[in-house]
């Protein structure tokens, strides 16, 4: 039984690691490697030229900047707005039906297919003259990060004992003051985890960016990656280099916050130890 386990896992390790190996090594290959068939399994030499030609030659640094702005916007607004919902439903006296209704409504956004929103949204922003503008992406990324941000914050708030604020309230502090001076410092690690997960999810978003932007002025990084996949001539090493950059950001961020990821993705139904 144990041997079976080890063999199966070894096979899966190949199935899961080799594709990454292939992408990363494709990204550092010189063009000559692509004229051999089959391509050598190890790059004939290692070059960073594909990265520089994508990032600088094709100006993907602009897309990187756009992604940073859109994702950081989603993080800031998503957490602020998520807190405006999570705080009252966990800390203030509200009817249970109101609390449940509000939280479920936010949760339902997770199940709203993006294509349903993007069709009317396209027509609306085109009429408003906001087509191909980073601002409309920030708005949508904020909305679609709300289910995760709100539910994570709610989970974290439930773990902070009420007595902590009550002590401050008894000492004469206002609710607002107690929130900022007592509760918020307690929540610092929680806010960081929420920010990281919100950022990574927004970073990976594709459909909104694909449909609502047209030029490098507002395209996000994944849109650039997809634009290198063309029907006829694919420049393999550049496509792989862009893919590597696009993948490394969420992987590193979420490995750092990995304790919270499965819990966040299942809205608290799975509590994790790992």
């Amino acid at each position, binding site marked *: *039984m144990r041997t079976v*386990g080890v063999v199966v*896992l070894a096979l899966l*390790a190949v*199935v*899961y690691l080799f594709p*990454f190996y*292939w*992408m990363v090594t*494709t990204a550092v290959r010189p063009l000559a490697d692509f004229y051999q068939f*089959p391509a050598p399994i190890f790059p004939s030499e290692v070059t960073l030229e594909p990265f520089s030609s994508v990032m600088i030659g094709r100006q993907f640094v602009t897309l990187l900047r756009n992604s940073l702005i859109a994702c950081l916007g989603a993080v800031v607004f998503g957490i602020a*707005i998520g807190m*405006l*919902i999570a705080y*009252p*439903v966990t800390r*203030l*006296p509200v009817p249970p039906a109101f609390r*449940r209704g509000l939280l*479920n*409504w936010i949760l339902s*956004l*997770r*199940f*709203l*297919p993006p*294509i*349903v929103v993007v*069709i*009317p949204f*396209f*027509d*609306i922003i085109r009429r408003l003259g906001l087509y191909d503008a980073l601002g409309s992406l920030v708005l949508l990324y904020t*909305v679609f990060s*709300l289910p995760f941000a709100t539910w994570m914050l709610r989970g974290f708030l439930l773990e902070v004992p009420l007595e902590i604020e009550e002590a401050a309230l008894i000492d004469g502090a206002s*609710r607002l003051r107690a929130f900022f001076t007592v509760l918020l410092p307690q929540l610092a690690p929680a806010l960081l985890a929420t920010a990281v997960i919100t950022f*990574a999810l927004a970073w990976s978003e*594709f*459909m909104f960016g*694909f449909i609502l932007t047209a030029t490098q002025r507002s395209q996000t990084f*994944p849109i650039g*990656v*997809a634009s290198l*996949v063309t029907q006829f001539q694919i420049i*393999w090493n550049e*496509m*792989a280099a862009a*893919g590597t950059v*696009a*993948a490394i950001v969420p*992987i590193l961020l979420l*490995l750092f916050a*990995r304790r919270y*990821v*499965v819990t966040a*993705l*299942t809205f608290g*139904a*799975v509590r994790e*130890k790992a």
Partner: protein
Amino acid sequence: MTPYLLVAPPVLLLAALVIYPLVYNVVLSLRNYRTGEFVGLHNFARAFDDPLFFASLRATGVYVSWALATEILLGLALALLVHRTIRSGWARTLIYVLFFIPMVTPPVVAGVIARLMYSPNYGVINVALAKLGLIDTEILWLSEPGTAMFAVLSVDVWQWMPFVFLVCFAGLQSVPMDTVEAARVDGAGGWRLFRHVELPYLRSLLMLVVVFRFTDTFRVFDHVQVLTGGGPGASTEFLSLYLYRIAFKFFNLSYAAALSLFVLAVASVAFAVLGRYLGKEVGE
């Protein structure tokens, strides 16, 4: 008063950015997009005579059922295997990280990776199969309907079987030790231990996984757009891709809006199922 004051801004924002667009969609769907005139239910009636819509529906059905079945069976089996055979803490952490990484890779990148694996002139899958003696002519994975469907499905399974695994594995670890011990003393091993002791603990988590995977496979877009673009022909043109083509290639937003309301209805059913079966986990 204050709680309602606090939630007012988010509610207004969502009204403007979610409810308004959905209402707008209904209005769009009742018009002729080009002329703007009111056409009643014409766009909905049109769907019934649209063979491409039905083809897309069927492709989506095939995709959803294969992806769900494969991911859940493999993920659950793997969770059991690791739970039963791997004891050491560091090995478990290593396995965790191995399966965590594909899950958090952007779907577009998963599509790019698949492109690097399946493409005829650079792909390694053909090379590997030829080396193993399994094929003697190249398979044009992305040019045949059947193999293209397999390719897009394989990306979904590769990315999301790990999610099922991680959820089930966490669930298995929450089964109380003494319950398992008691069952073992009573002579329950292997299959019976799973069927009568562990499965009841996993049931609600499995429902949750089904709903999440259904929702995400039903709306699939990103990696398919990169890998096949819906082709060859319309063989992998799933609903989101078909709606994309109608709305943004043919610029018939009204017809796309009508079809999108159908997509919304199906997604709403999935959400309702989640609420009903998982009241405890998510309703609270």
